[in-house]
């Protein structure tokens, strides 16, 4: 029984145990402290006894007893009442342990919803979810978002204070607000994935751990709320992008564009899982889900044996579905890039210039970068150079900067 094995059990069980403890003790902070107490007991006992057959039940039991100890101490500090009154107060505060295992799934779902509650800001939602549901330490969450541990600790304390003071409920939302709240949870998961997969600044192209946490959260949510197109769609989208991770960069950390990637390096298992999920998500009745449509685009890339055999007309069509239901400047940009593959760079350039004229993407490096590629293909090298320089002035991620500089140098 090594420390690594115990760590793995903790990581797997932290979210579930915390979720159940919150239900039993009725307080986020107390549950978190008791979880840490339970881990401490396990670290002490398990190397000798081995991991118990049901580590979750062990941790919940120990955590609950530790919470009772803590409350007992608090109460006897605050008021010197008779022993009986103290016990009665504790009994009122802590629900009895219900051995019913089914309740645990509901607990985890409630925990996800409380962490992603819309009365908390997005940064707090992401931090709480990673800390409470995924079981990351405050230091790990801080590192993932490139902020100091102190700053992250304050962010978490503020979020938990608000949960308690404003009485954010520990419930699965009712049917009238469920769609909206699921949407909020998915936005948090997608943000975690994007931060891991398409890092916006810094030296490395990917932070693999964050992308994996997001996929883990997506799988968890899909298992807890099966049959929801948005959840299946997002999980598919993440898997189909993540499947390309080994081909996306050279050993030196330089970007390899989709057209140059060695497709034999793509993760066939993740692609297969993603494709099955896309189909499920797209079969759902009603307006197509935006994650599912974007996953369908990723699926077409995943299914193409070579870049030049990609089904570009269908990709253009899917971007047009996005533009009709969920218009955004970034989708317009991607649509234009796909149009270039079907109708040629001249028509795509006209779309981009119209987009640029509206000024919505000012400051976004991929607008001049995409423009530069189209100009280069049209042989308008002077304008292409100027566009690459404009993109270089805006780019924040080192590997992207090197790619743009390389392209510029190739133009001579």
């Amino acid at each position, binding site marked *: 029984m090594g420390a690594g094995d115990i760590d793995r059990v903790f990581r797997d069980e932290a979210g579930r145990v915390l979720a159940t403890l919150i239900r039993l003790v009725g307080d986020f902070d107390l549950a978190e402290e008791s979880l840490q107490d339970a881990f401490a007991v396990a670290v002490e006992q398990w190397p000798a006894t081995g991991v118990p057959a049901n580590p979750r039940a062990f941790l919940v039991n120990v955590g609950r007893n530790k919470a009772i100890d803590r409350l007992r101490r608090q109460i006897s500090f605050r008021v010197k009442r008779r022993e009986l009154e103290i016990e009665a107060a504790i009994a009122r505060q802590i629900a009895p342990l219900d051995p019913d295992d089914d309740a645990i799934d509901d607990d985890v779902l409630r925990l996800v919803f409380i962490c992603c*509650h*819309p*009365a*908390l*800001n997005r940064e*707090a939602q992401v931090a709480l979810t990673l800390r409470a549901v995924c079981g990351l330490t405050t230091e790990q969450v801080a590192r993932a978002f490139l902020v100091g541990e102190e700053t992250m600790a304050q962010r978490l304390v*503020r979020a938990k*204070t*608000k949960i308690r*003071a*404003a*009485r*954010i*409920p520990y*419930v699965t*939302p009712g049917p009238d*607000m469920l769609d*909206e709240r699921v949407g909020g949870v998915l936005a948090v998961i997608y943000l975690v994935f994007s931060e891991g997969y398409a890092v916006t600044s810094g030296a490395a192209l990917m932070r693999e751990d964050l992308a994996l946490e997001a996929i883990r959260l997506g799988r968890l949510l899909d298992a807890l709320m099966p049959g929801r197109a948005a959840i299946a769609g997002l999980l598919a989208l993440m898997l189909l992008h993540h499947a390309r991770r080994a081909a996306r960069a050279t050993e030196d950390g330089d970007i390899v564009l989709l057209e140059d990637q060695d497709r034999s390096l793509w993760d066939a298992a993740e692609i297969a899982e993603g494709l099955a999920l896309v189909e499920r998500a797209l079969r759902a009745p009603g307006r197509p889900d935006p994650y599912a449509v974007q996953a369908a685009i990723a699926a077409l890339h995943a299914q193409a044996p070579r870049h030049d055999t990609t089904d570009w007309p269908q990709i253009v069509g899917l971007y047009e579905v996005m533009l009709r239901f969920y218009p955004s400047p970034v989708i317009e940009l991607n649509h234009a890039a796909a149009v270039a593959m079907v109708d040629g760079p001249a028509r795509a350039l006209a779309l981009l210039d119209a987009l640029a004229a509206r000024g919505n993407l000012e400051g976004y490096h991929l607008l001049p970068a995409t423009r530069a590629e189209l100009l280069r293909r049209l042989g308008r090298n002077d304008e292409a150079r100027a566009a690459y320089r404009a993109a270089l002035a805006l780019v924040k991620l080192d590997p992207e900067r090197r790619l743009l500089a390389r392209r510029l140098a190739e133009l001579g």
Partner: protein
Amino acid sequence: MNYLLLIYGNEAEFASQDKAALGKMMEEYGVFTQGIIKGGQFKAGDALQPTSTATTVRVRGGKTMTTDGPFAETREQLGGYYLIEAKDLDEAIGIAARIPGAKTGSIEVRPVMVYG
């Protein structure tokens, strides 16, 4: 005629004052509150939790939009208030969203301080 008396102050300074200063202020509030109760002028009054616990609710195009934090729009001015009892923040947000003014303005939902 009824009047609403709104108490503004610096939260950070309030939170950082020492126990003695806090006790003195609470005592002054006690004396003041008792005074207007005796004078027959008191209707209701509460301390509020700090703005870090606030949630702002707006309804636009039939959709409820919820944001973390207090109302911070200088182009809108305080125009009224409701004191409600709700079992949790979700119920309070739901009621806030039904206020007609939520469709054009903003409703700040702030928990009332509970002592003890």
